[in-house]
């Protein structure tokens, strides 16, 4: 046995070749709060990796006349004044491979889930110029999130950047997790980037994804609240580098940045420590570029350039519903639409608490299948009219028949859009529900029975309207024959339900 160990070691030592080359070396002048000021290191590039004697890595962020500002990625407590810092000549990159799927990694793609090392043959730079115009395709393939309010009213397409914005505890993360859970069997890779979140929350979330079988196609990139601001700063870029690795294989990727408010705060902290001049709300001047260069990497590439797409769901947490603050307005202007979640709706029991009026998808119905477009086309307008009438109806009791009808339909629409957490609904089921709603089949169902009706309707139609389902699944639209079958099935179901 010992001979075997000695023999193996001998072979390894024989295979080792010492690499002697001239290196650029600097000296640590000062270290504080995850930042090091290093003298020397002439000709170093911005975003270049440097190594410290204890094996920690750093990234050059500030190039000054006689020193460079380095952010330390890891434990900085053992770095001291006078330590040698070596330039690597490489822009910060992370190891990537298919083995990363199902794993929880930190901001430099090192596993933190205790499941051992991740073998990787390739590295990807975390900073990359976004794909150019000629390589892109317009967004016209839907991302089925499984959330009725989104898929019907604010459709998201593959390659789109849709912001999820709302106060604390309004269900922003829940919405994103539901979207991941619904990607099972949809040929989509998911990357969840957790920025400055509590480890307990991440643990809970990972367990939820595991239980839903979503970890098979998901990667979690985590920069916890206890880690240095530098890790939070680079985590989204690492996440998108992982996403790009899969997109380069022609795959569709969904990436969630949870959340970019904390990312901006981490960047502010780093910038202030590096003595960059503060601007509005003490954020540095390039905080817009921080997010625009990240979100611009979401795209749908044409087949000539390898195909694949990255759909981004950045999350922003607002304070007391103030969407006119600096970071929310920046990210709203960068993204292709926003899903606005409201505390009032949440406490009224309307969950997901999506404010349909303030939410928008700039890509719009081109990212919807034809069947969904047909049933949900007027839903947003109907709901807007309902909200207006609802306010108006509070002043008078004597309403005409059509107004009453519209109000009743509105109440049912709101009820249909309610959905439990971690219970995404398949697109074909959504089509059946919205068909029944918009064609008036639910008008005489009591509001408090709508959920029960919807559940029963899906189960019943799945058994008795197979032609309709087949048509929607295969050709994304129904024919007259399928519609007739569905109508008949709904009528039959209603008769049995009302008994």
């Amino acid at each position, binding site marked *: 046995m010992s001979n075997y160990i000695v023999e193996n070691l001998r072979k390894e030592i024989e295979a080792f070749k010492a690499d002697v*080359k001239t290196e650029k070396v600097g000296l640590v002048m000062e270290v504080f709060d995850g930042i090091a000021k290093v003298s020397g290191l002439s000709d170093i590039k911005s975003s270049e990796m440097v190594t410290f004697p204890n094996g920690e890595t750093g990234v050059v962020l500030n190039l000054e006349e006689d020193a460079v500002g380095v952010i330390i990625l890891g434990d900085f407590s053992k770095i001291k004044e006078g330590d040698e810092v070596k330039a690597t000549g490489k822009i910060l990159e992370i190891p990537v491979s298919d083995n990363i799927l199902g794993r929880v990694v930190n901001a430099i793609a090192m596993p933190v889930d205790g499941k051992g090392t991740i073998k990787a043959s390739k590295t990807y730079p975390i900073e990359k110029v976004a794909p150019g115009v000629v390589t892109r395709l317009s967004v016209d393939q839907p991302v089925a999130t499984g959330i009725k309010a989104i898929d019907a009213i604010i459709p998201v397409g593959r390659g789109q950047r849709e912001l999820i914005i709302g106060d604390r505890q309004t269900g922003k993360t829940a919405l994103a997790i539901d979207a991941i859970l619904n990607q099972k069997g949809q040929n989509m890779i998911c990357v969840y980037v957790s920025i400055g979140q509590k480890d307990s929350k991440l643990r809970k979330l990972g367990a939820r994804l595991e239980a839903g079988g979503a970890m098979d196609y998901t990667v979690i990139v985590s920069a916890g609240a206890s880690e240095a601001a530098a890790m939070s700063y680079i985590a989204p870029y690492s996440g998108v580098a992982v996403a790009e690795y899969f997109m380069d294989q022609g795959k569709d990727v969904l990436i969630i940045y949870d959340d970019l408010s904390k990312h901006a705060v981490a960047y502010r902290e780093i910038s202030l420590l590096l003595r960059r001049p503060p601007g509005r709300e003490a954020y540095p001047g390039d905080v817009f570029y921080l997010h625009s260069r990240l979100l611009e990497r979401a795209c749908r590439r044409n087949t000539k350039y390898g195909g694949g797409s990255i759909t981004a769901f950045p999350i922003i947490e607002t304070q007391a519903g103030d969407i006119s603050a600096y970071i929310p307005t920046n990210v709203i202007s960068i993204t292709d639409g926003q899903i606005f979640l409201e505390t009032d709706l949440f406490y009224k029991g309307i969950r997901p608490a999506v404010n349909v009026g303030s939410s928008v998808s700039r890509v719009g119905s081109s990212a919807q299948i034809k069947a969904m477009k047909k049933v949900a086309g007027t839903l947003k307008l109907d709901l807007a009219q309902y909200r207006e009438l609802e306010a108006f109806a509070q002043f008078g009791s004597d309403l005409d028949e059509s107004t009453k009808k519209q109000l009743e339909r509105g109440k049912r629409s709101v009820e249909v859009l309610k959905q439990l957490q971690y219970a995404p609904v398949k697109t074909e089921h959504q089509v059946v529900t919205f068909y029944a709603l918009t064609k008036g089949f639910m008008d005489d169902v009591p509001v408090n029975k709508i959920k029960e009706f919807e559940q029963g309707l899906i189960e019943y139609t799945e058994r008795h309207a197979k032609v309709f389902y087949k048509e929607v699944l295969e050709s994304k639209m129904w024919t007259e024959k399928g519609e007739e079958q569905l109508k008949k099935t709904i009528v039959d179901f209603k008769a049995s339900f009302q008994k």
Partner: protein
Amino acid sequence: MAKISPKNIGEAIYRATEGKSGNDLSVALKRSAQILRDKRMLGKSREVLSALQDIVDKNTGTVRMKVTTAKVMPIGERKKLEGEIKQKYKAQKVVSEFFEKAELLGGVRVEVGDEVLDNTYRNKLRQLEQFLIQGK
């Protein structure tokens, strides 16, 4: 107004003293010291001197080399190394400092500015250690 750096002061002192000798030089140096005092930069005098040294070296084509070995380097090898460095950096003059550190075990470490060529046994052992840990 922009902050005055030690490099700026060094550059100013160099220009004020360039080509001067004797009494003129001592007057210029005295004024330089007064400026440092007036600008409350006496605490930065080490950085100023270092910047001044760099400027002088650059203008006179001087390269400063620091050589560390485990044992004393023979004179012949020192001359050979200086010659090579002179050629590599296209320098007029090489100013060398030689140090001995037994912990390097063997080999030589040459430092020129922020460039380091570490061919010591200690560094090779460190690399072997990393190689065995990382399995690369």
